[in-house]
């Protein structure tokens, strides 16, 4: 050891690596990084351009205000757009409170015992279950056993189950990010556990929880398989007015149009994809905005 520190004092014959070679290595990895990013970006661009070229001409007022039709020039996305909105409202009303409360329980109240570990392992597993399995579960439990039929409500319940693990995991992370010093400050003033959670932990974690919830919503909006499994319709010439009404959603409508033979329907599908993408981009931007605000506020 003593000899090692000794070399520090002398002027540097022990440092031999060539600066040029090191710089070259850095550049090499920059290029490699760029190359790895490219396929993703190029694929996305090609898709986008293709979709926009095909669909933008069909994006008019009539497209948003019409139901599906056998005649492409009269067909629109109204039922699917409203179906998606309708289903998502119920999905979030179900999933967010349950998910957030689960996260609060697991982070703040549950001890570290076999039961909580069992729950945690299960939540982690649920996050990895293929979405079609949720569809099968929804079909059996909500559609058949609970006799909701192939309704908006059945779809919402299924989707809520699907995104619950995402919301729980995100909410737990948001709660864990609350600085311990803030909890301590609260407890030291004679606040109870609940008062501390209510007044400090939750407000601090809220933006993070919201971000998680929005990303989960974005996931649910794009999901198709579980809804096809529970039997959401592909042709819906009406607006669902009751939670137990039948319905369709954007991805199913798109799927339906793509599978038609006439090429006009493929343009309609492209227009539908644009609508779906815009909805997703809006949701993701809100999530990013919230995360940014979380960083600057504290």
């Amino acid at each position, binding site marked *: 050891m003593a000899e090692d520190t000794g070399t520090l004092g002398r002027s540097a014959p022990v440092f031999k690596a060539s600066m040029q070679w090191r710089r070259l290595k850095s550049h090499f990895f920059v290029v490699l990084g760029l190359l790895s990013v490219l396929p993703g970006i190029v694929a996305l661009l090609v898709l986008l351009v293709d979709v926009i070229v095909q669909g933008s001409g069909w994006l008019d007022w009539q497209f948003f205000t019409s139901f599906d039709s056998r005649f492409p020039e009269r067909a629109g996305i109204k039922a699917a757009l409203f179906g998606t909105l309708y289903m998502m409202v119920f999905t979030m009303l179900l999933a967010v409170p349950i998910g957030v409360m689960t996260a609060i329980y697991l982070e703040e109240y549950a*001890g570290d015992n076999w039961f909580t570990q069992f729950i945690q392992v299960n939540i982690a597993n649920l996050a990895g279950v293929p979405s079609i399995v949720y569809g099968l579960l929804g079909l059996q439990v909500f559609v058949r056993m609970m006799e909701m039929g192939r309704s908006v409500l059945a779809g919402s319940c299924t989707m809520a189950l699907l995104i619950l693990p995402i919301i729980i995991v995100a909410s737990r992370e948001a709660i864990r990010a609350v600085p311990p010093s803030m909890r301590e*400050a609260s*407890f*030291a*003033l*004679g*606040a109870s556990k609940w008062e501390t959670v209510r007044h400090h932990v939750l407000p601090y974690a809220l933006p993070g929880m919201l971000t998680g919830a929005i990303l989960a919503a974005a996931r649910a909006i794009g999901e198709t398989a579980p809804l096809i499994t529970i039997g959401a319709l592909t042709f819906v010439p009406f607006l669902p007015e009751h939670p137990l009404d039948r319905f369709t959603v954007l991805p199913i409508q798109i799927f339906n149009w793509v599978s038609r033979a006439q090429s006009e329907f493929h343009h309609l599908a492209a227009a539908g994809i644009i609508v779906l993408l815009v909805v997703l981009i809006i949701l993701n931007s809100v999530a990013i905005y919230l995360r940014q605000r979380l960083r600057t*506020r504290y």
Partner: protein
Amino acid sequence: MIKVPFTKAKEEESTVEAVVREPVSTELPKDVPAEMPDPAVEVNNFSLWYGDFQAVTDVSIKFPRKKITAVIGPSGCGKSTLLRGINRMNELIGGVRTQGNVLLEGTDIYADTVDPVEVRRRVGMVFQKPNPFPRSIRDNILFGARVNGYQADEDELVEAALRGAALWDEVNHDLKQSGLALSGGQQQRLCIARAIAVSPEVLLMDEPCSALDPIATLKIEDLMRELAKDYTIIIVTHNMQQAARVSDFTAFMLSDDTARGKLIEFGPTTDLFTNPTDERTEAYITGRFG
């Protein structure tokens, strides 16, 4: 031996004359002078374990009422742990076990009937790093009062607490600004204001100046002298000069091969610094170790 009868909480005062009270510990430590004022906090044979790790070993100490007691000792000797044992903050960490008791005005705060939440209102704490809530100055002060059911005028309380912490003149123009917008020293005084707003009986301060510059430090020290008129203050510090400047009594703690977190010596600050009875105390305060 103890001249002053044990003053308990006010409602029990009338019974003091009738009952011949037996103090919990009839013997004072030999290095404590007989004229020591009656204790507000009394720690008896207190030990604490983090899991299997014992951090405090058999500490007995009486913290005099409305005095400042400094707790000094090398890093890791269990000062913070002892301090957090006095408001039961250690329990927020899992796997903590204690032995012995801590009497606050004669009542064991570790008794089964005592709620730690109530203990923490009566024993306030100021932390090493200023930790105001990311809220307005006003809300910082009112939070503790509100959860503890404060009924009277809120504006009055805010002003009284801020004046008590010598912060009023600097912030009264804008009580809505965030507590985080203040300087470090101001933040620490806000934390003190927040602590005294719930009318505690004891104030625990764990290295309250270690994140502050010398001027802010002196301000806090002045403030502590002022607060000692109303509160019993226990302060952990690494700064010998600070302990000598600010405290009336000093406790020296140490960990060694035989046990961790022992109380080595306790007495009036002047005695302990000028004439320590234990050679380890002398070695520490003269800077020979720790």
